[in-house]
């Protein structure tokens, strides 16, 4: 899932150090004092932001994604906790020898929440809806390889691709299937979502809560144990934490390390964690000085002490980053394969000298306004300072950041990029010449050739070799200095059972969750 950056900051912007101190004091006291019984079979969750809408093809920010993915909506495939592609609404599939023709057998007996039966025509309509120009879905590029989709019988869909695509099955996991009636309906699902998932939408009190109820006609077995889910929207971090400590909320899903550490070890609260797919990075503008010079980019990489950043800014809850998350075990190369993963101020200074630059090399670093990233930025500023860079931090409001980011209006930025389970999703759109999120304006014909070939390659070992090459090329001289993968947490009351945190932030395992008395 993308749109990482729309995660709202943990603390509201502009919350002063004093405010935080006061809030923390209050919290520490509460957490020490409060303890309460949990209640009924509706799971009370607290989230920080009200979603912009609930149409799965339009709103891709995490604030919407975590409420609808795997709960209200399902795709043909799904991503499990090991990040493997598993069957969902498609119970099985076959792929032709040339890798271009897929035949999906659909589950039988599934119904949408409005009562209509789920059939192949709904799949075809959903795929067309994502691709339709009027819908303008940000997910459209996931289906770029698709040529056509045909329903051959009510439970079979044939999809033909223009060229083989190794990432196609994982891409399908992010395409929610909606009733065919919505194919040309732009706005209907934003307020009243309608899917096949284990929970159906009941009510949305704007800024208050979104409640879901068990879908009694759910095709998957067993039926969800919970009667329903209630996503309470509580923008204050302190309020969410007090709510969990007092038992009013049973779960705070997908929280960062700073929040999790405040809750750790408190009575009746337990934590789950996993390594995120998303990575923090310093992105560099490859179209203008000083970062148009690969040597300067390399110098910046050597100047970063990633282990120190993880310790100082993430409270140790993370791991130094290479181009792919270590969670992608099949693909990620070990960090020691990249020379610049070893911090070296001397090497960095030498590279700046080779580049013919006089130190200090001054530039402005645009920072995404989120607490953990602001903390990282300060450590990065100090580390780069030692190597001969002079960094000025600019922390704008979110809207301004997004605008500057999208228009490549920066020398360098510090942000977080959403990761995906297939390397093609991670690299192609971000690093290929002209890629939709290649805001670095980076262009390397050799890399383009490898990326183009690897996305249509179906032989796993050849793909692996290609992506090793890509990782090596990007690790030290690419336009992104990969900093860290954070640990992602979910905090819950100890009587919540069966939940499993997923690295892509989906809350699909709520279908198997129960609350004991």
């Amino acid at each position: 899932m993308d749109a990482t950056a729309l995660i709202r900051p943990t603390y509201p912007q502009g919350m002063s150090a004093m405010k935080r101190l006061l809030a923390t004091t209050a919290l520490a006291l509460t957490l020490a004092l409060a303890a309460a019984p949990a209640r009924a079979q509706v799971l009370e969750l607290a989230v920080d932001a009200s979603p912009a809408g609930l149409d799965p093809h339009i709103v891709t920010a995490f604030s919407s994604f975590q409420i609808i993915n795997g709960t209200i909506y399902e795709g043909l495939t799904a991503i499990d906790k090991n990040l493997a592609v598993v069957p969902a609404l498609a119970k099985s599939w076959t792929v032709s020898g040339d890798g271009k023709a897929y035949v999906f057998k659909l589950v039988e007996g599934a119904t949408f929440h409005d009562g209509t039966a789920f059939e192949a025509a709904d799949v075809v309509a959903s795929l067309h809806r994502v691709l339709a120009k009027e819908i303008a879905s940000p997910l459209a590029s996931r289906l770029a390889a698709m040529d056509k989709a045909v329903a051959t019988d009510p439970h079979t869909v044939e999809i033909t691709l223009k060229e083989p695509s190794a990432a196609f099955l994982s891409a399908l996991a992010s395409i929610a299937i909606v009733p065919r009636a919505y194919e040309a309906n732009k706005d209907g699902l934003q307020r009243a979502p309608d899917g096949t998932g284990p929970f159906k939408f009941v009510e949305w009190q704007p800024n208050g809560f979104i409640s879901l109820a068990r879908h009694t006609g759910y095709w998957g077995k067993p039926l969800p144990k919970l009667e329903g889910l209630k996503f309470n929207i509580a923008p204050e971090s302190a309020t969410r934490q007090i709510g969990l400590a007092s038992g009013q909320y049973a779960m705070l899903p997908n929280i960062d390390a700073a929040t999790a550490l405040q809750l750790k070890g408190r009575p009746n609260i337990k934590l789950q964690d996993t390594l995120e797919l998303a990575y923090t990075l310093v992105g560099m503008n490859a179209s203008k000085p000083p970062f148009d010079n690969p040597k300067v980019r390399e110098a910046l990489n050597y100047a970063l002490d990633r282990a120190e950043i993880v310790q100082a800014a993430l409270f140790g809850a993370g791991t130094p980053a290479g181009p792919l998350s270590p969670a992608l075990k099949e693909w990620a190369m070990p960090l020691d394969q990249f020379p610049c993963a070893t911090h070296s101020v001397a090497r960095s200074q030498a590279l700046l000298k080779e580049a013919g630059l006089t130190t200090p090399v001054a530039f402005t670093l645009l920072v995404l306004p989120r607490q953990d990233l602001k903390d990282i930025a300060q450590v990065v500023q100090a580390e780069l300072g030692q190597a001969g860079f002079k960094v000025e931090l600019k922390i704008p409001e979110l809207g301004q950041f997004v605008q500057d980011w999208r228009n490549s209006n920066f020398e360098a930025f510090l942000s977080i990029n959403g990761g995906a389970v297939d390397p093609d999703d991670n690299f192609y759109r971000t690093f290929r010449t002209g890629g939709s999120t290649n805001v670095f304006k980076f262009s390397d014909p050799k890399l383009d050739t490898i990326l183009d070939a690897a996305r249509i390659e179906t032989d796993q070992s050849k793909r692996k070799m290609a992506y090793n090459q890509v990782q090596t090329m990007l690790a030290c001289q690419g336009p992104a200095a990969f900093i860290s993968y954070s640990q992602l947490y979910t905090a819950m009351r100890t009587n919540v059972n069966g939940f499993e945190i997923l690295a892509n932030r989906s809350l699909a395992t709520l279908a198997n969750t129960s609350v004991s008395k």
Partner: protein
Amino acid sequence: MRRLKGRLLDLIVVLFGVSVITFLMIRLIPGDAVAIMLGANAEVTPDRIAELRGRIGLDLPIATQYIHWLGAVLQGDLGVSLWTRRPVSAEISANVWPTIELTVMALVMGAGLAVPFGVMMAWLRGRGWDVALQIGSVLGLTIPSFWLGIMLILALTAVAPELQLLGYVPFSQDPWGNLARLLLPAFALSLPILANLARLVRSAMLDALAQDYIRTARAKGVREYAVFFRHALRNALIPFVTSVGIMTGYLLGGAIVVEQVFAIPGLGRLILGAIAERNYPLVQASILVVTVCFVVVNVLVDLLYAAIDPRIDG
């Protein structure tokens, strides 16, 4: 009546001015609605962004957008929320009740308690209790309501963990739950105005007590409590009522913070969220509604003058 007419004219001018300023200000903030909704790192091509912008009408020149909007508003149509396509009027009416309840409760608590406290402070002037109350009122003025809110939640969850303190339930669904949940935030919200107004009543009372008519009253042999309540208090109430009108504005502002802390889905949260996602029609309409409330309260205050002081022409 003359005053009322003048005030109505004022209202129209204020509303027009506020609408123009809001319209421009929200658009001057960098980052437009489409960019915000997609966020950084969403994979979208420029033509899809253009498509989305066109879909919500952002591709027109600003002046045209304003005229379209104004025309619709004059016909009673506040527009639709950018992404949910729900009428703005529905969004506002869903969020306005918690805020009205909260402000009215806070106003009743603050203004209601300020009079006895202020009178008590004036009565006890110069004595130990007056000093204690004065210190208390300075504290009340300076404690930030968000912190007070958190401390109150903390204290109550410690004493009675089974209490439901966060969020909101409509009065019609659960009257007791509704009041119980609003009591704490209303108190947190009212404390600064309680402190402020109590100090004001005290000094207005002391002013009034120094007037000639008080001496006359005492000389006539009017009993001290009658001097206090019938003569001094009535005169002290005029600046008090003016301030209450102004305080309503502070309350609407303070409600934003308190709604954040107590997770109450009110107008403050609605506006804050709408600004964050650059939901232009929603911001414009909500601010108009708040402006109308503010102006109407001030008109009511004007009318109250006449009731308190017959010399003022109603």
